[in-house]
């Protein structure tokens, strides 16, 4: 004997569960992620215990371990850096310059850029670090 089951609504309850999960993931990634431009090379900042929370905003100058530069995610030469920074500073004199140097970058490739930023008129130059647990 063949029993005829009543036809079930094929997708209503499963789709709502899927929407819930996708929405939860969407909010999760929006909250924990930062929408910063990433450098085209590997940059692992130095670790520090006394670093302060970095507010959003500003421009990021990334320095690779070998001394390559990237300004807000785009590679740039040392010669083109000063005009680019000056142009940005003209638009916003209070602009924060974040120097995100690889922890293995030699200081001869990093400190002159700090001085260069200061000389151009940046009043807020910070070094980017990652938090280290106080051991």
């Amino acid at each position, binding site marked *: 004997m063949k029993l005829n089951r009543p036809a079930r609504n094929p997708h209503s309850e499963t789709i709502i569960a899927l929407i819930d999960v996708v929405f939860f993931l969407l909010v999760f990634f929006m909250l924990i992620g930062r929408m910063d431009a990433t450098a085209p090379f590997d940059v692992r900042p130095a670790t520090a215990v006394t670093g302060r929370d970095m507010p959003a905003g500003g421009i990021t100058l990334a320095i690779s371990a070998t001394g390559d530069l990237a300004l807000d995610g785009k590679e740039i030469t040392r010669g083109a850096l000063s005009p680019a920074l000056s142009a940005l500073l003209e638009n916003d004199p209070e602009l924060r310059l974040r120097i995100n140097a690889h922890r293995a970058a030699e200081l001869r490739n990093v400190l002159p850029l700090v001085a260069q930023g*200061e000389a151009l008129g940046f009043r807020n*130059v910070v070094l980017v670090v990652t938090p280290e647990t106080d051991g």
Partner: protein
Amino acid sequence: MMINRPARPRALISLVPMIDVMLILLVFFMVTSTYLNLDMIPAVKPSEGTAGSPQTPAGTLMIRLGADGVPVLRGTALDRETLRTTLSAAMAEEPLTQVVILPSGAAQTQALITVMDTAALAGVTRLRVLRLEAAP
């Protein structure tokens, strides 16, 4: 005369386009976001640019940072803990002591940050990083 139109079936709003949009947004945020927890250490303090300082430092300690990343204070190479203890003792004796770091150009960024970090943990408030330039 009243004409009774037959009731139209209630249109169901399809949820599939909404799921598509949400999935696209989800993938977008997953791919474009960075998830590193970043902090900052000021490299240029706002007060440094002003002429004159309200308090004159009582003394200066110079820490040389060699190419190997080892800090040297008064000719003695120190590890991180010893440096912290020494600086803490100096700060307890004279809170206005200025600490100057003279790093080698060949030292790594992590070495400088570690020394700056150690100085901050020891309570140093007047910290400067010097940079020697080659003569033209």
